[in-house]
């Protein structure tokens, strides 16, 4: 259950003090990364934290100053959470948010507390137990905090994959297991620009909808490795979340993947319905909206109404269709290429 409370003046004051004090601490390592339109300076309190999270992001292309600072630190053993009313013993999520601040304790979902202070454009991720950070979380670090950083912009983090050809992008939404990852990585192998296979950023302005990378990561199941031998150089680790082997990829070293946003031409809801060839079909926007909004609300709690408004704008701006890739991925990519022309 999610407990959401707006306001909370005491918590907000403590959050503001906490962020300010954290920013004055020494940090062991820093990275300047690019997350969509934002340049973020990420400061890690120790090398373990850097090793856990840093490779999940693309380095910033320009040497310009960072627009946000994110401080990542780990709690000492037994150290209480630094916000009043927040406890490590609380298994449920706890959210306090306002226009200025966003404070989220993840509870049993993840050993993390996020504090985002919009006036100072600073955020903190406080990890209570480094060894408890799951591999899936390392592949998409700080997601709720990043979403909160985008709340005062038209950008939105969504659960979707995306590919582009010549800066014209297709967004693949839909349920897990429908083939979004396979499709996007096969596209990468076939010369498409890979934008993401799990979470990506969308610019929801109606006159210029666009997609941009959020994380420089992908995850391959064991049975997918042979299909993508060209990604072997991107492999960083084997993880065993839930006893399933996954090959963790960091794509930050692949220069052709860097780049800004690509114009969104099409939003496809990937859903297998038994077609023997790739198939495009009409779909109701309400179905797509409900599915995508549910994930946004759960994976990145808070600001439901403005985030839903952004998602609605996106669905108004981009043509939407249902897509069954069929059994052959090569045919699916050819159909997508033809659709873009």
């Amino acid at each position, binding site marked *: 259950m999610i407990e959401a409370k707006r306001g909370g003046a005491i918590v907000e004051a403590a959050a503001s003090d906490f962020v300010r004090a954290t920013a004055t601490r020494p940090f062991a390592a820093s990275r300047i990364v690019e997350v969509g339109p934002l340049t973020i300076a990420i400061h890690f309190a120790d090398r373990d934290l850097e090793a856990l999270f840093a490779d999940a992001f693309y380095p910033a292309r320009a040497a310009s100053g960072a627009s946000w600072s994110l401080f990542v630190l780990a709690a000492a053993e037994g150290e209480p959470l630094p916000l009043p009313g927040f406890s490590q013993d609380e298994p449920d999520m706890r959210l306090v948010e306002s226009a200025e601040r966003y404070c989220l304790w993840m509870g049993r979902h993840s050993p993390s507390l996020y504090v985002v202070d919009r006036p100072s454009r600073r955020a903190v991720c406080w990890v209570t137990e480094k060894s408890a950070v*799951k591999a*899936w979380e390392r592949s998409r670090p700080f997601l709720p905090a990043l979403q909160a950083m985008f709340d005062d912009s038209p950008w939105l983090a969504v659960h979707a994959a995306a590919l582009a050809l010549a800066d014209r992008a297709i967004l693949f939404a839909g349920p*897990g297991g429908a083939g979004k990852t396979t499709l996007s990585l096969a596209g990468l192998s076939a010369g498409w620009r890979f934008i993401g296979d799990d979470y990506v950023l969308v610019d929801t302005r109606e006159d210029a909808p666009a997609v941009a990378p959020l994380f420089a990561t992908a995850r391959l199941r064991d049975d997918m490795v042979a299909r993508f031998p060209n990604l072997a150089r991107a492999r960083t680790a084997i993880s065993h979340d*839930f006893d399933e082997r996954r090959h963790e990829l960091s794509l930050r070293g692949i220069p052709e993947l860097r780049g800004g946003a690509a114009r969104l031409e099409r939003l496809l809801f990937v859903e297998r319905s038994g077609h023997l060839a790739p198939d495009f079909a009409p779909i109701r926007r*309400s*179905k797509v909206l409900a599915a995508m909004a*549910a994930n946004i*609300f759960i994976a990145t709690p808070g600001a439901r109404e403005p985030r839903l408004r952004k998602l609605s704008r996106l669905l108004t701006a981009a043509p939407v269709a249902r897509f069954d890739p069929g059994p052959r991925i090569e045919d699916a990519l050819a159909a997508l290429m033809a659709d873009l022309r």
Partner: protein
Amino acid sequence: MSDPIDLVFSASGPEVIFENFGDEMVVANLASGFFYSLDGSGADIWNALVAGHTGRQFIAASRADAEGAAEIARFIAELRSEGLLAEAAHPAKPDPVSVAAFARPSMQKFDDLQGLLLVDPIHEASPAGWPFVQAPGESHG
């Protein structure tokens, strides 16, 4: 007690938001997590009600027959029972109701959020990680 088709309504609160995609109307109840797609004359009825018109005004404007009028009354009752409409204190707007040709109103309800809310992040998440749900046959080992 007033006949519900004579009542004036508004969206039941800031948690109820709606979006017109042109070819369909979507209403979201952020408090309950349910989404609704309004079909047939459902979108016209919704627009008329949240603009301050009554169901009776809509029935008159749509020229629905007795069966159609009953459908409209049933649809309004359904919107109320889903917590999407609340009685408003202001009088009905006297200006004309804008309405297309009448078609039986209905709604489709989406419960995607409810499904995710019920996921146990430790025991039921898929290998892709929370908040994704295990597919049938998938296990944690």
